[in-house]
C-alpha cells in the first residue's frame, strides 16, 4: 500500500506544478487548467489525509472541491469565449497591454 505521506508529497508536487503553470502560461485556457491542477492537488491531499486519519471527512471535502472547480471552469470558459470575441486573443499579456480609451 502506498503510504499516505507519499500521496501528500505527490499532491504537493502537483500543486507546485499547477502554480508554475499559472505563472508561466499566458494563455487563459492553460492558466485555467493549471488552476484545476492545483485544486485537484488540494483534493488529493484531502483524500490522502482522510486516509491518515481514517475518516471520511476529507473525501467528503473533495466532493465540495469538485463542483467548485467545475463552476469556476464554467465561468472561466464563458469568459474565455468573450475574451476571444472582444480581444481576438486569449493571451493574457496581450490583453493586459491593450489600452482602452
Amino acid at each position, binding site marked *: 500500500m502506498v503510504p499516505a505521506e507519499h500521496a501528500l508529497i505527490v499532491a504537493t508536487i502537483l500543486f507546485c506544478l499547477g*502554480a508554475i503553470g499559472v*505563472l508561466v502560461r*499566458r494563455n487563459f485556457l492553460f492558466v485555467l487548467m493549471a488552476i484545476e491542477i492545483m485544486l485537484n492537488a488540494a483534493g488529493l491531499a484531502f483524500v490522502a489525509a482522510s486516509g491518515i486519519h481514517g475518516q471520511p471527512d476529507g473525501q467528503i471535502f473533495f466532493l465540495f472541491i469538485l463542483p467548485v472547480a467545475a463552476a469556476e471552469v464554467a465561468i472561466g470558459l464563458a469568459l474565455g469565449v468573450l475574451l476571444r470575441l472582444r480581444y481576438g486573443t486569449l493571451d493574457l499579456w496581450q490583453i*493586459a497591454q491593450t489600452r482602452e480609451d
Partner: protein
Amino acid sequence: MIYADGTPMVWPIPAFALLGAVVIFVFSRWWAPRTAGKIACTAVGISFLWTLVVAAHLLGSGARQLAIHEPLWTWLSGAGPVDAKIGFYVDRLALVFAIIVSGVGWLIHLYSYAYMEGDEGERRFFGYLNLFVFSMLTLVMADNAFFMFLGWEGVGACSFLLIGHWYQKSENCAAAQKAFLVTRLGDVFLILGILICALLVGVDYTNLVGFDKVRELPQVDAFGHLSGKTVLLIAGLFLLAGAAGKSAQLPLQVWLPDAMAGPTPVSALIHAATMVTAGVYLIARFHQLFVQVPELMAAVALVGVLTAFYGATCAIVQTDIKRVLAYSTISQIGYMILGLGVGAFSLGVFHFFTHAFYKALLFLAAGTVIHSLHGEQNIFNMGGLKRFLPRTYLAFLAGAASLAGFPLVTAGFFSKDGILWSALTTQFGSVPIYLLGLFTALLTAIYSFRLVFIVFFGEQRKEIHPHAPSSLLEWPVMILALFAVVAGYLNLPHAFGGGAWWEHFFEPVFKEAEARPLVHDGAKELLAAGASGLLALVGIAAAWKLYGPPARRIVPEPVIAAGEIQNDTPAPYKSPLANLLFAGWYFDRLYMRVFVRGFKLVATLANLVDNVIVDGFYELVALIVRGFHALLVFFQNGRTSRYALVMLFGAVAITTFALMWR
C-alpha cells in the same frame, strides 16, 4: 479738575494733547484742513496752561508739597517684577520738562500753523504733532519707568511718522526708518535696563532711592551672583545706551542728521527741543542709580564730551542749514550729558532748558529762511538775507549767540559755562574732559557764526526771490529769542553775584546726588568763565575772518561749487579731513556697510535656508514617498501571471517564515 485739598490734577496735561490728536484723526477728514491746526494749537495751548497751573501750585506750596503723585489704574501686575501703574508723578524735574514740552511745543504748534499751510498732509501733520506732545508729556510725567517707556516709544513713533511726513520721497522714508531702528536699538537696551531695575528695586520713581542698598550687596542671586555694584553698572550702561539712542549720542548718533528730512517745525520740536533730550531726562531721573557707580558716571561724562566734540566738528563743514543745526544739537546734548556725567544734574537740566529755547528758535528761524526761499537749504545758495528777513535775522542772531555762548548776555553762556566749571571741579570731573569741552566751545562759536555770516551777511549768491514771512512765522520766534537771552539769569552763579536759583530749585530732586564743585573760589570760577567767554568771542572772530563778507574764501575748499553740495555728495571737499567730518566721521557708511548690508544678507540667506533646506527637507520626504509609490505602482501592470508571481512569492515567504521562525 482739582482735588479736595486744592492740588490740581495732572492727568489733564497729557490728556488734552491726546484728545486733540484723537479728534483730529477721527473727525478732521470731514472738516477743512486748517481746522486740524486750530484744534491742535488749542489742545496744546490748554495743556500748556494747565501745566502752568500745576507749576504755580507746586512753586507756591514750596517745600510743603514737592510733587504730585497721581496713580490712575493698575497696568502691569501679577507678573513678578513687572509691576506698574498708569499714573503720573510730577516733581520739579518733570515740571521743568513738562513746561518746555508744552510751552515750546505750543509755540512751535503756532508756528507750524503758518508753516504748514497748504500742505497736502496738514491734518495728519497736526494729529501726529499732538500725539507727539502727548507722548512726550507722558514720558516726562509718568510715575514709573514702564509707563515712561510708553511715552518713550510713542515719541519715537511720532518722530518716525513726522520725519516721513512727506512720504512720497524715498529718502524721507529711509531717514524715518533709520531713525526708528537706531533709536529702537537703544530702546531694547533701555527696556533691559528698566527690567533690571524692576528686579532690583522696582520701577516706581519713589523706589529708586533703593539703589544705594543694592550697591552694598556682595552678590545678587538673580544675576548669576554678580556683585550689586556690577549689576548697577550693567543696568546703568543699558540705560545709557537707551539714552544714547534717543538723544543721538555716540555711537548711535547717526540718525539725527538724516532726521532733518522732516518738516522744519518737527526738527525744532522733536529733534532739537524735546524728544532728543529724553536721554537727559532719563539719566536725571535715574540719578540715584548713576551716582552709585563712579565708573558709570565716567562713562556718561565720556560719552557726553566725545559726542559734544563730534557734533561740533561735523557741524563745521556741513552745507545744509538744518544739518548744521542737527549736528549742533548732537553736540549740545553731549554737553548736557556731560553735565549729568560730572554730577551736575541740575546744570545738565539747565542746559536742556536754555537749549530748548535757542535751538528751537534757530530751527524755526531756519525754517522761515527755507520757507522764504522756497525750500532752499544749502547755505551756500543763501547770503545777504539780513535785508530781506530783518526780524528773523535778529532772532537767529540771538539764538546763534546763545549757542556760541556769547558771554554774559546769553542763556547758553551761563548754562554751558556751568557745566564746564563742574567738569573741571566736581569729584567726577577731570582736566582733559574740561579741556575738550572748552575746545568744543570754540568750535561751537565758529560753526554757529559761520552760519550767521554765510546766510545773513554778504551778497545774494543765487537769484532768489524771498517772500516776506507771515507774522505767525515770526512772533513765536521772537518769544523764543527773548528766552534764549534771558533764561540764563535763572541760574546766575554766585560768582557773578547771582543766587543760583535753579540749583536750589532742584535741590529736593537731586539731593546729595548733585555733585558740588570741590573748589569754592569765586575768582577761579570767574577766570574759567572768562576763558570760555573769550573763546566764544575768538570763535566768532575766526568765523568772521573765514566766512564773513570780507572773506571771499570758503574753508575748506570744495571740489564742486559749494552751492551744489548735497547731503549725499560723496566727497565734496578737497581735504580728506573735511570730507571725514562732512560724512560724520564715516559712522554712517560703516553702519550701512556692516549692519544694514549684513542684516540684509543674513535675511536673504535665511530665506534661502528656509526655502531650500528646511522646506527642502519636507520636499525630500515627499519625494521619497513618491518614489516608493512609483516603485509599487510599477508592478500594477495588469498581467495576471505577474500578479500570481507576487502572490506566490508571498506564499513562499509566509511558508518559509512559518517553518523557520517557529
